[in-house]
């Protein structure tokens, strides 16, 4: 089956999934939950907002919605970085730089095939999970999006955009990451890593990217090097 993008242009997850088996049940359960929430909320606003995935009348990014939709966990953040767009794009585009500011990623190794790399992601108890990703879209100085290739242990997709901030105050960097952990023991481990505090890790990562780009270093309250 064709892989479809789970992140629309506003960074919101789309409802369709690549695996249609079991979808009817899942989406019905989802609708039931949403419908009952709408009842509690005393209106149909949330129902409308999420059932159709498009008819939202405010201008907020979709990941700020009060209810998530679909089977993917979506997290994302925006940060303003006081550096030119080209510089930040170039830094991010070299995926091997990601581990310098992303805590959950141990290393990123290009496979040799165009746009493909193996991301080694930290999991609990000192274990790691490898995920092979491919670049989906790459527009210089504007946006990069990637997703895990078919058959990966973690089904994930991400997108980062770079836009000029107003008044020459640098670049607005917005990251959105969607992921669906697999079932079973590995799934629970990955969920523990990623889902414990959705958004916190993404926020820390972007803050660290900002520090690196703006100051050339990562702030730390440590007084001495721990290995001493």
């Amino acid at each position: 089956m064709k892989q479809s993008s789970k992140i629309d242009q506003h960074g919101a997850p789309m409802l369709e999934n690549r695996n249609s088996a079991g979808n009817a049940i899942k989406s019905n359960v989802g609708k039931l939950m949403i419908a009952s929430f709408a009842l509690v909320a005393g209106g149909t606003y949330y129902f409308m907002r999420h059932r159709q995935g498009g008819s939202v009348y405010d201008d907020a990014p979709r990941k700020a919605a009060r209810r998530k939709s679909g089977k993917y966990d979506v997290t994302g953040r925006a940060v303003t970085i006081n550096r030119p767009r080209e510089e930040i794009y170039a830094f991010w585009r070299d995926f091997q730089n990601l581990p310098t500011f992303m805590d959950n990623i141990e290393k990123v190794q290009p496979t040799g095939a165009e746009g493909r790399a193996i991301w080694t992601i930290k999991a609990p108890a000192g274990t790691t999970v490898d995920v092979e990703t491919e670049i989906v879209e790459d527009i210089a100085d504007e946006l990069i999006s990637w997703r895990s290739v078919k058959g990966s242990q973690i089904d994930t997709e991400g997108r980062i955009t770079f836009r000029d901030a107003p008044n020459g105050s640098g670049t607005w960097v917005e990251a959105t990451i969607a992921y669906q952990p697999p079932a079973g023991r590995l799934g629970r481990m990955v969920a523990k890593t990623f889902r414990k505090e959705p958004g916190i890790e993404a926020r820390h990562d972007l803050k660290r990217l900002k520090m690196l780009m703006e100051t050339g270093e990562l702030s730390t309250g440590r007084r001495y090097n721990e290995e001493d």
Partner: protein
Amino acid sequence: MRALTWHGKHDVRVDTVADPEIINPRDAVIKVTSTAICGSDLHLYDGVIPTMKAGDIIGHEFMGEVVETGPKSSLQKGQRVVVPFTISCGTCYFCGKQQYSACDNSNPAENQDISATTYGHAVGGLFGYSHMTGGYSGGQAEYVRVPYSDVGPIVVPDDLDDEQVLFLSDILPTGWMAAENADIEADDIVAIWGCGPVGLFTIQSALAMGAGKVIAIDHYKGRLDLAKQLGAEIIDFHQTDVREALMTMTGGIGPDAVIDAVGMESHGFAIDNMMDVAKQKIGVGADRASALKQAILAVRKGGRISMPGVYGGFTDKFPLGALMEKGLQLKTGQTHVQRYMKPLLDKIQSGELDTTFLISHRLPLEQAPTAYKNFKKNKSEWTKVVLKP
């Protein structure tokens, strides 16, 4: 090295701990020659600042000699520097606007969550002032690691001794910014609550900015005497009804500007303050704000409020209506120290400002626990303590 470490409420000790090292390229290590106890250190001492951990080195007013530099520090070994208590990267949006204490980068990413949640945005890094502000080791120690040393520390000339310049690290700029935040106009009447070191420097600054009259309010005789020496009229709130007095002393109008140099552990007899004391004691975390509340009621219509006093949480019974109905302006914030260091150093050098008058005690660092106890207990005589490592 020897350093003053925090272990809990009213429990500070001088311990032997690991020396600091260069960690990041822009770091420097300073050998401390003088360090002071700040009024806001008493908030730590009293255990009302959250996110402290046993063993934390406190202290944020310090100066010394550069002994080590990272490859990207602009300092040189042997230079004498005063270090601002606010840590600022110098390159973010806020540093660019000289709002140094709002620095976006100096608080480590993993320490930003608490303030981001409590205040809506993460605060900048500070030396020796809890993990919410970065978990940086403070200056009441023999050595300190100074991050972003190319931005913060100011090199001071050798002909000025430590006591003349030490307070550039915090309280002198804090007093100056407090007066600046009151938008003082010529001949204004300015009332200042609190004659601790910041209050006293605020009096000096307000007069230097052209205030016609400064009225200082406190209840420690020793501190009120110092305020009087600086040229303020004084009110002892244990003897006098402050509001009555202020109305009379301002021809029934109220002060043009009021300044709360007291902060979250305000003393007072009002019922709401007693409630707040009780709440602080049982750990519900209310900020006692009786000085601020009194100031808001006293200030004239259309007047200005400046709030250098430190607050960390929430307060009850805040006179929000008075703020709106009287059309008041309120300015506050941690001091943007780096903005004021050079101009204030110039004023010290020219003799325009003297900072040494408030030092009451000089002790070796080893006696810091005694100093804290006395600074807390005997405020009338212990106005400012300078420690020598």
